[in-house]
């Protein structure tokens, strides 16, 4: 299935788009998605941290993805 992924900050620069479609297996976990993303965009491995939010919440690597999830790449935050 294809999921739609939002990218902010340096993640947007790495991907080259603020929103993009990415092919994942059915029930793929967030951890597996992160590995795939690093394979496609090696610069993600250089970040100080690299988290995924699903539907507005941080999730663990074990979290399974669904086709209509709002998936967001969260590079190191720097608010304040």
């Amino acid at each position: 299935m294809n999921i739609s992924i939002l990218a902010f900050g340096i993640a947007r620069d790495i991907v080259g788009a603020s929103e993009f479609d990415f092919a994942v297996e059915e029930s793929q976990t967030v951890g597996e998605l992160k590995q795939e993303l690093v394979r496609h965009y090696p610069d993600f491995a250089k970040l100080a941290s690299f988290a995924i939010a699903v539907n507005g919440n941080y999730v663990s690597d074990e979290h399974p993805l669904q086709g209509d999830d709002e998936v967001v790449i969260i590079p190191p935050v720097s608010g304040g």
Partner: protein
Amino acid sequence: MIDIQLFDTDLDTQYCTEWVSTPEAGGVVVFVGTVRNSTSEKKVVRLEFEAYEKMAVSEMRKIAEQAAERWPIRKIAIHHRTGVLYPGDIAVIIAVSTPHRKAAFEACAYAIDTLKETVPIWKKEIFEDGEVWVAAHP
């Protein structure tokens, strides 16, 4: 009571301070984070803040709720800017009122420390000769 807001216009310290003040609280602590004119000796021209807005607001609300569980907070306001900021501009205001001052200091410091760790907001520093996403790399 909790007031969480993201603004793309100037933040208002006076508003936050007055909003948290109440005759039930003897101590108000306000943190105001402003844009410095230099980082590691380099002159900062401007900062560009962007937020994953929905989640930035919900994460700031979580911080306020967690603080209110840990300390006897009467009111807490967290206001954060997005967009382009220049040296001296206010990026964030956190105001907390508690019956006694120690809790207000602790809760306010906890809130800004946690905000900088968890809230999906990013800033890019623009120097005269380049730019960098703050904290992106180790």
